[in-house]
């Protein structure tokens, strides 16, 4: 038996040929150049899971670096009988520990995601000092309007302010805001940080009545009210951090970027719904006819259908990814409102002035 047991004492790399006694107290190790010692079973651990074709390699948690290598099958069987914990394998304690850890990690990851994507953006957006919002707003507005000119026809500006004031009066707690029209062909309206709103000439051109513009404005005011633009920026920052953390800044980067884009988009859909419901409530209180917004959406829908018939599935996919809720959905929600007698938002003369606001333009100034 002596030749089949080797002992390393953890002090030198020398091999000691030893003999062992397998007793109920533990394994007694003795040999010509090794002092007799006993390794109790509860201090034993297997270096790797025991295997019939390989020697059993044992360590003692109390003796750093020491190893006992058992080659004989009889000895291995005996030891495993007396110290079954060495087998590892499907062990209730170990597997429950593993499951608990995995669950804890998953919970922590979900908590982290919730905090970074949901909680932190809302909190920080509300806490953000006004000077920060201002600079952020300026930068964002500049980058979105690029080199477009600002529309400054004074009569049109007066009409725009009147329309804005009428809508804002429908909210019991209207946020501070500013609104500008840019000489851009595309049809668009957006809110950026700092309560800034931008309308385009294309949008004014496409609208038939002031009610339509009032509806769009009410929607954008909803974004300002909920500070969605500020929250979105904080969220992007958080996502950058998360992607870095989970992927270690390496190969997962591209996957992470796609994931983060999808997250930003889906959060925007929530924000659009919030802004829609703000618009509904505000217009109701301000007694502005939602009919205008409905016809406007109807026109957008027709345009979408025209595109759809041309390109089929891909456009449907783009729709799913797009930041706005489905147009049909939005019309449905608006129709549910009682169609009371609406007030006149602008006089025909004022409406004409607003439509012609881009008769006079100037380079954007830092306002």
């Amino acid at each position, binding site marked *: 038996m002596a030749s089949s047991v080797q002992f390393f004492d953890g*002090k*030198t790399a020398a091999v000691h040929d030893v003999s062992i006694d397998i007793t109920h107290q533990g394994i007694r190790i003795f040999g010509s150049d090794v002092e007799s010692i006993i390794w109790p079973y509860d201090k034993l651990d297997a270096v790797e899971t025991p295997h019939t074709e390989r020697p059993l390699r044992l360590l003692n948690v109390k003796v750093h670096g020491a190893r006992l290598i058992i*080659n004989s099958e009889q000895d291995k069987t005996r030891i495993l009988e007396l110290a079954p914990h060495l087998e590892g394998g499907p062990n209730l304690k170990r597997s429950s520990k593993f499951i608990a850890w995995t669950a804890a990690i998953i919970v922590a*990851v979900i908590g982290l995601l919730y905090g970074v994507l949901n909680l932190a953006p809302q909190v920080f957006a509300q806490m953000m000092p006004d000077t920060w919002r201002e600079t*952020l707003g300026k930068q964002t507005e500049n980058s979105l309007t690029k080199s477009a000119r600002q529309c400054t026809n004074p009569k049109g500006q007066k009409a725009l302010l009147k329309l804005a004031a009428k809508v804002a009066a429908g909210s019991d707690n209207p946020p501070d805001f500013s609104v500008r029209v840019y000489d851009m062909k595309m049809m668009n309206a957006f809110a950026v940080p700092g309560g800034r709103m931008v309308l385009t000439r294309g949008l004014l051109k496409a609208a038939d009545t002031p009610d339509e513009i009032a509806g769009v404005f009410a929607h954008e005011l909803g974004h300002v009210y909920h500070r969605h633009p500020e929250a979105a920026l904080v969220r992007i920052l958080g996502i950058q951090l998360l992607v*870095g953390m989970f992927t270690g800044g*390496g190969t997962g980067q591209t996957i992470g970027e796609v994931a983060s884009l999808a997250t930003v988009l889906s959060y925007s859909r929530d924000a659009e719904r919030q802004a829609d419901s703000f618009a509904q409530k505000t217009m109701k209180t301000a007694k502005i006819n939602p009919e205008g917004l409905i016809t406007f959406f109807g026109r957008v829908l027709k345009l979408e259908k025209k595109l759809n018939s041309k390109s089929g599935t891909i456009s449907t996919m783009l729709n799913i990814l797009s930041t706005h809720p489905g147009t049909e959905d939005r019309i449905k929600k608006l129709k549910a409102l009682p169609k009371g007698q609406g007030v006149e938002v602008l006089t025909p003369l004022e409406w004409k002035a607003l439509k012609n606001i881009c008769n006079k333009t100037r380079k954007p100034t830092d306002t």
Partner: protein
Amino acid sequence: MTDTAFSSQPESVNQTSGGSTITITYLEKPGLGWLSIKNWLLSIITLGVYRFWAKTNVRKHIWSCIHINGEPLEYTGKGMELFLGFLVIFFIILLPFVVLVNGMQLAGYPEMALVFQLFFTVLFVSLYGMAIYRARRYRLSRTTWRGIRGGLTGSSFKYSMLYFGKMILSSITMGWATPAMNLELQDRITNEMQFGDTYFSFKGRSGPLYSRYAACWFGSIFVYVVLVLVSAGIFFAIGKENFSAFFAGLDDALKEDNSNGISTIIMFVVMIYAGFAIVFGLFGIVWSFYKARELAVFASYTKFDNATFRFNATGWSLVGLWLGNFLLVLFTLGIASPFAMQRMVKYFISRLEVVGWIDVQKITQSKQKLDPRGEGMLDAFDLDGF
């Protein structure tokens, strides 16, 4: 005795020298396939957090296949150590970086943001060597043979300064300082490396590296010229009109309302990746011949006790190793990366020879303290040998 291949033999001591010869073998064990799948699945479920434990499992398996004189190596690292190391780096470098740079941008000081970005870039680059050194130290201290562990006892800061110096000198000299500086780095790290309490030693000059370096340097210039000529040839063969028409088409494809553009975009992306693969592949092949030379020369300069090392590396075998591993990882979406690591370890072991003798009996345990943290910094830089 069950199987002589797996059991440790007392060295047949050479009576005249007092030491024994060393043979290193790699004996494959079953279980790596299952381990690969398990690691991959758990990494996905935990959004990548499991990667530290995955790395540890793979190392435990591969280390235990490496047998020196019949006795396997043992990897004693823990996943938690790597995770903690990563957290430390995350909170002292990555988090302040992202928060400061973006915060300055948010607060309306883009110039300050730029200054911070510059500062962190310099910090990252100058600490690159530190990351390499600390990762090596961690792995050595977690590797044991016959219960005796390895170690690295020098200053990681000094190493990182030397590494920084190498990067600067190499770029100033258009690469010609690289062999000399690589030798300096290898000299430092090898002389500070130990097994138990015995140091490795490294001694030699960079002269023998230069003939091969010159060949590869001019070779890569040649490849560069050929690539430029071929690109120009393709450009003229296609014709200027078709060329600009393609880019105009790409411009159209990128417009929001053009949904037929997707295929054009995909084609373009594939072309870019194929281009990169060709360029990197060609330069990689050329420089493999230098790398082979460097590995062989460095091995011959290394000594431990009364043994020296021979490493029989060739350029083409390195190309085969890297290309094979690249394809293996690419086509299995990373699931087989433990097998790629095994291939690499097997390559090194099969070509490494220990010449001379080592008095194994006299090697005593390392007195180095064990650093409880893992290779955090290395993970942050995402470089991984094995």
